[in-house]
């Protein structure tokens, strides 16, 4: 018992001693003592000596209130020789801060004069790090949970393959931009390069940055520099799925230098800016109109064509298609982004009007397309359209299985189940060709038409010019034997009106709307956009009935058939079983048809 007590009391003594020692003898004290000694020995005049004498080690701090929230920078507690030119060749931490023209320092009469005085600016506004910290690890922000580690420093637990690339004082350019926001600021060439890349590589199409772009597909990047460290930004650019498994951001083919410039540009996006107040910014936005619009229509986004290259025609269009990274998503020839449809036979599938309209606003042609409207100039759109329209070489495949695998399986899947490589990015989802109920309840003629003419308002293009009719039939036979695995059954003849017998009137539309709200919204949604509360549980998803191109392409007869007898192989029930009469179906059809009329008015 006494032995235990004695041991415990000694342990307590030792712990107390360690804490006392730790709190009383600091690393920074030894740096300061060493500085004072060296400064005394370097002092040539009495005045210099007097300035140092009588000073004892203490915490030095600069309190800066001008840049955002108050900064307390105690960096000069260790880096005490920071503004003492005699220490310019000493080792760290006593070395004095270098002078450079890039920082705005000036050489006057052989002596450098600082542009950014430490008393006014502190340290962390440029360097980042934790200003209050007094020990190396914490002060340099190398604690895992500190959001702003010293920019360009190298002691962080970052991924080993990126670490060497994240070192270098050029990363501090990101912080210059917090005040020097002008586009052409000379001392931040990498920010400017990153900004050009942000537009050149079409990042703006998906990502929003306040005042620069309006993309809505990807995460907003207005404050990305405040939220993430540079290693995370770098990783997210080169390997989008590393941090978000659900990301479908394409991998862009960027060199390390380009990634570095983009990283620095993104790090400079902190959602704040010290050279103007939020009111200034608000007023500037008002004067400019919609931020992204102004940029797009001002033509800032597009660099002028290099001299000596054509500005129109197929060659220019081809260069644009490659320069603008279209193949980051689309497939064209041997390039395949794995996200968007194949463009290899675009000239055979779509006409130029369709392409121009689709470029200007993809959703005007395919209602639920995820393709961003990039806002290039009409001249560029025209050139790209000309190039794509020139792609008229049909594929060299003859046997039906090969045709299916090379042309259809990218969307409909190798197994025909609709889960092709790019299927998740398509809306409506590609048809599941293994559903016997669906495949055997529709006529062969309808399938042939869908393949030959495409399905309007969806990503299914018209294959009529790519495949001959006999090839289409052969592919359908292949699908029937390989995926449906049942012989085609004769279609049951049903009595259906060719044209809606109920005349369209406002009363009929109102009755139709009432019925729709009662019966259809669970799946098709109150807006009839196919996004009702149950929609996520079913595949194929409920049809987006606001898809004008699609709805205009289907006949009244088909709508009556789907509504009265349901769509086999999908969740759409036969409404005749639920007591809807043909007259009520007529009202519903009138209601659906009224969407387009409303649009035209």
């Amino acid at each position: 018992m006494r032995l235990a007590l004695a041991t415990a009391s000694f342990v307590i003594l030792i712990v107390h001693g360690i804490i006392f020692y730790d709190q009383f003898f600091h690393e920074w004290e030894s740096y300061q003592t060493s500085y004072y000694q060296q400064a005394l020995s370097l002092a040539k005049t009495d005045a210099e000596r007097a300035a140092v004498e009588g000073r004892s080690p203490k915490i030095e701090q600069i309190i800066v209130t001008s840049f955002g929230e108050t900064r307390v920078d105690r960096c000069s507690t260790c880096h005490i020789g920071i503004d003492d030119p005699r220490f310019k060749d000493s080792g760290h931490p006593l070395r004095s801060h270098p002078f450079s023209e890039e920082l705005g320092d000036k050489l006057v009469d052989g002596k450098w004069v600082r542009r950014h005085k430490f008393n006014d600016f502190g340290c962390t506004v440029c360097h980042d790090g934790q200003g209050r910290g007094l020990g190396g690890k914490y002060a340099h922000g190398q604690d895992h949970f500190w959001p702003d580690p010293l920019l360009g420093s190298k002691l962080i637990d970052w991924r080993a393959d990126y670490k060497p690339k994240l070192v270098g004082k050029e990363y501090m350019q990101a912080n210059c931009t917090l005040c020097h926001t002008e586009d052409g600021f000379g001392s931040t060439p990498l920010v400017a390069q990153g900004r050009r890349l942000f537009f050149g590589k079409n990042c703006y199409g998906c990502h929003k940055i306040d005042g620069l772009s309006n993309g809505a597909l990807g995460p907003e990047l207005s404050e990305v520099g405040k939220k993430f460290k540079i290693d995370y930004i770098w990783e997210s650019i080169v390997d989008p799925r590393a941090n978000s498994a659900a990301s479908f951001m394409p991998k862009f083919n960027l060199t390390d230098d380009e990634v570095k410039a983009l990283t620095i540009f993104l790090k400079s996006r902190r959602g704040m800016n010290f050279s103007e107040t939020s009111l200034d910014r608000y007023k500037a936005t008002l004067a400019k109109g919609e931020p992204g619009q102004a940029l797009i229509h001002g033509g800032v986004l597009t660099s002028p064509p290099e001299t000596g290259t054509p500005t129109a025609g197929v060659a220019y269009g081809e260069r644009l298609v490659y320069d603008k990274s279209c193949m980051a998503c689309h497939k064209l020839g041997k390039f395949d982004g794995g996200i968007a449809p194949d463009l290899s036979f675009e000239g055979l599938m779509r006409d130029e009007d369709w392409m121009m309209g689709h470029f200007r606003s993809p959703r005007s042609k395919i209602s639920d397309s995820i393709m961003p409207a990039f806002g290039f100039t009409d001249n560029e759109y025209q050139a790209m359209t000309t190039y794509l329209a020139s792609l008229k070489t049909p594929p060299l495949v003859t046997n039906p299985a090969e045709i299916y695998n090379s042309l259809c399986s990218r969307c409909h899947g190798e197994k025909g189940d609709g889960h092709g490589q790019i299927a998740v990015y398509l809306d409506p989802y590609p048809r599941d060709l293994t559903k016997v109920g669906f495949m055997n309840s529709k006529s062969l003629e309808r399938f042939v038409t869908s393949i030959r003419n495409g399905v309007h308002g969806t990503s299914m293009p018209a294959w009529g010019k790519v495949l001959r009719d006999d090839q289409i039939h052969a592919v359908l036979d292949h699908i029937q034997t390989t995926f449906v695995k049942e012989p085609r059954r004769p279609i049951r003849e049903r009595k259906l009106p060719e044209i809606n017998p109920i005349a369209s009137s406002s009363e009929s539309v109102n009755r139709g709307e009432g019925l729709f709200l009662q019966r259809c919204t669970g799946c098709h949604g109150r807006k009839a956009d196919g996004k009702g509360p149950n929609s996520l549980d079913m595949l194929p998803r409920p049809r987006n009935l606001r898809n004008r191109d699609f709805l205009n392409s289907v006949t009244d007869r088909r709508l009556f058939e789907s509504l009265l007898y349901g769509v086999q192989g999908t969740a759409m029930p036969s409404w005749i079983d639920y007591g809807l009469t043909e007259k009520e179906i007529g009202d519903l059809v009138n209601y659906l048809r009224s969407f387009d009329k409303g649009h035209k008015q």
Partner: protein
Amino acid sequence: MTMKKRNEAPAEQTEGQLTRRRLLTWLSSVGIFGSALISLVANAFFIKPRATYGQPNRFSIGKPEEFPAGTRQALDGQRVCVIREGERVCAISTTCTHLGCIVAPSETGFACPCHGSRFDQDGNVTGGPAPKALAWYKVSLAPNGELEIDKGVEVKSGTYFNV
């Protein structure tokens, strides 16, 4: 084992020698009272904070050339008045010694707007309720060539720094 020890202990103690029990008692006391002592000393030191969030006491005000001869410039942020006469520079506090208002340089010296204290050019009281003269602070030349004022060090009235 313990039983045996307990039985033996009184016998050894009577002989007045350094018994195991006594040694352990001593060691425990040293441990406990030693750590108590360290705590007391440490607490006494730690009562005063090492750094506070006010503006630092020592600050540089710029190159001597920015203060030509004859300057009397009050720096309101730092509450100090920089005076240069020829090649001599000094820094006088502008905090009134009465109730801490900021005194303003006037033709005759300094005047406090709150209760009418008057000071002469050197900060000595010439009138009003102020109990004592304004403080003079240490001025020195920092290695980067700028003048530095240390409000932590008061110097005797009339101590100038020669530029």
